């Protein structure tokens, strides 16, 4: 999947157990790719001493409104996090 700068992406809402590195509070949320970071070894495999595939990693920017809804302290503030490609799917702008 070719996420490029400013593309809208959604974090997959799945909830597997174990070491997945995608914070729970971002599951299902939409953000924009702030910058691609290049390929990195998949931490889900490294964490269990398995041979790890390379996965593209992205910095994704979320608005606090998107993440916390009406509970957002200040809706225009943002949250940036590094998310692996296999956790992201393209989506429409909100």
């Amino acid at each position, binding site marked *: 999947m070719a996420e490029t700068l400013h593309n809208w992406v959604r974090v997959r809402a799945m909830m597997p157990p*174990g*070491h997945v*590195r995608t*914070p*729970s*509070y*971002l599951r299902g949320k939409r953000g924009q790719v702030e910058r691609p970071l290049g390929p990195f070894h998949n*931490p*889900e495999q*490294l*964490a*269990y*001493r398995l041979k790890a595939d390379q996965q593209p990693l992205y910095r994704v920017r979320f608005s606090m409104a998107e*993440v*916390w809804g009406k509970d957002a302290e200040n809706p225009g503030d943002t949250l940036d996090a590094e998310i692996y490609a296999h956790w992201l799917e393209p989506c429409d702008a909100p």
Partner: protein
Amino acid sequence: MGGQNAGKIPLEGHDFALWEKRVDALMVLCSSKGYFTVDGLRRVLEDMGEDSFETMTYYERWVAAINQNMVEAGAYSLHELGTKMAEITARAETYGEASGG
């Protein structure tokens, strides 16, 4: 973790104890020697569960996590570890004496 309710952030810090600095050193050395990755450490820390934040200090959780990773890496066996820990406990009653300073 992110977004959970929590109280005031305690701002006072503590000076590092020697044993804590040693834990930190072992973490850096053993990971740089390829025995585990930071991901392995994080996984073990997560598996300890939320309660571990209440019952263990930061460096207690880290020495437990490093040890778990080293055991999984085959650096030493649980038998060797248990034997050594028993010997140390019998050695002395304070950290300073048991660790030789």
